[in-house]
């Protein structure tokens, strides 16, 4: 099955955590198994074969689209609630 996955984070021991959120699966791979320019929060084209993950490459289109989408929403969030926190100062 071909789908997209996101690099959620790089962790220690040179690992990368990849989420295939469409099927609720998480894979921990060595960073060396990723395309060399891949970074956390990038989207990948992947294929799941018999419960194993095959990385096809970075999905630049999805990466850019999702980054823009999140950026817009965060801007909305930050603008919306300014100054109403219960915080002390």
């Amino acid at each position, binding site marked *: 099955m071909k789908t997209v996955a996101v690099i*959620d984070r790089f962790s220690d021991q040179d*690992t990368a*955590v990849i989420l295939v*959120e469409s099927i609720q699966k998480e894979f921990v791979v*060595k960073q060396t198994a990723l395309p060399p320019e891949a970074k956390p929060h990038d989207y990948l084209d992947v294929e799941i074969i018999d419960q194993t993950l095959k990385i096809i490459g970075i999905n630049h289109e999805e990466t850019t689209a*999702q980054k823009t989408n*999140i950026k817009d*929403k965060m801007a909305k969030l930050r603008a919306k*609630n300014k100054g109403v926190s*219960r915080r002390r100062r």
Partner: protein
Amino acid sequence: MLKRWLWPLVMVLLLLSGCGTTMDSTDGDKDNNDKTEEVVTDVDENDKDVDETTSDKTDESAPAESGDDEEATLPVDEGNAEKENTETDGTNASIQTTGDMLVHFIDVGQGDSILIETTSGNVLVDAGNWNGRAVIDYLNDRGISHIDLMIATHPDADHIGQMPLILEALTVDEVWMNGVESTSKTFENTINLILEKDIVYYEPEVGDGIDFGDVAIDVLGPITRTNDANKDSIVTQVTHGAVEVMLTGDAGVKEEASLINRFGDRLVSDILKLGHHGSNTSTSQAFLDAVNPEAVIISASENNSYGHPHKEVVERLVTAGVDVYQTSQHGDIVFRSDGARIELINANDYPTTPVVPSNESRTTTNDQQDETTTPPAASPVPDVSEEETSALKENSACVDINTASKEQLMTIIHIGEERADQLMQLRPFDSIDQLTRIKGIAAGRLKDIKAENIACVR
């Protein structure tokens, strides 16, 4: 009611004094009048006195080691006690429990989630891993339907994981995040819900804080922003009277160094949740020394893909002689604080000596992928029974706590340099049981010391 018996008392006093000295009796009368008025009109004041007496009493029973913190936190405590009284207008029963704070380190597998329950609100710091339900189930089991403040230390999926589920099912007043933007659907679903439900959103800075009754949550980090999720973790210190709990998310050793430089002695806390699940990217010796905790929590799953907790961290913990609680062994770990001391009230019965995962095969798997939904078979954790250890070591040289050198003493579990010094000052000991005379050693650690069977009295 008091007024009724005070008047006859005044009359008796007047008769006894025989009105000979008018000035005196008038003064007495005035005093009594004042007093009567005070008792009748100021019921709240009376309640407050009761409360203050109670807190004084608890403060006295505070462990000596927290004396410094106690001094620093008392004014805050008093102020809040007053506030609490006016707010709750409580009965005697509520006065008894007003001060209690519960801190739950929820067993979420590989991830973090800490619930802080106070009488004035619930705070959730992180929400477990994205593909689990442990946090939402735990909250439901406890009948918690409202979260006053939800802090996501950083947007990695093992920390914000179940935020969408919680935001959907519970009412949440306010969410704090560190501002790093993830691109996962889990993160997107989280911010969608904050927007949709019109929840207050805030990115806290060092110096920010929020109070829930007599529980204060102070933001100590991130000190500098790097846009790296882990490094920018929101660091909070939870203060309840003389009790402090330090939560650092996944902040690393560099961030720990900045915290030491910025806050120094203020970092001292009773409990430290180890940064980054016990990874060697966090918990430097310097930070452990600076926080000087009684107990630490490692929130990680057994046989996880990252080898948490790492060996060097575990060694540091053993040398420091702290109680180590691991969600992988102890399950959900719950502490209760009365503002003077914090005690463990729930955890699986398991030694507080740290367990290093046997992950040799894992670290050599290089390009192998590790699907965490199907973890490798768990290797049983060695739990040497007391009898076995006794049999093994009965005739070998034990460390006589009355005569051993400092270095020898430090080979005993939970005895670091500081406690070894104390032990030597407190000599002689009649039995191992008397080790509880040492500051920081109570029943739990004594049990470990006995189980280890190295210490003895000849």
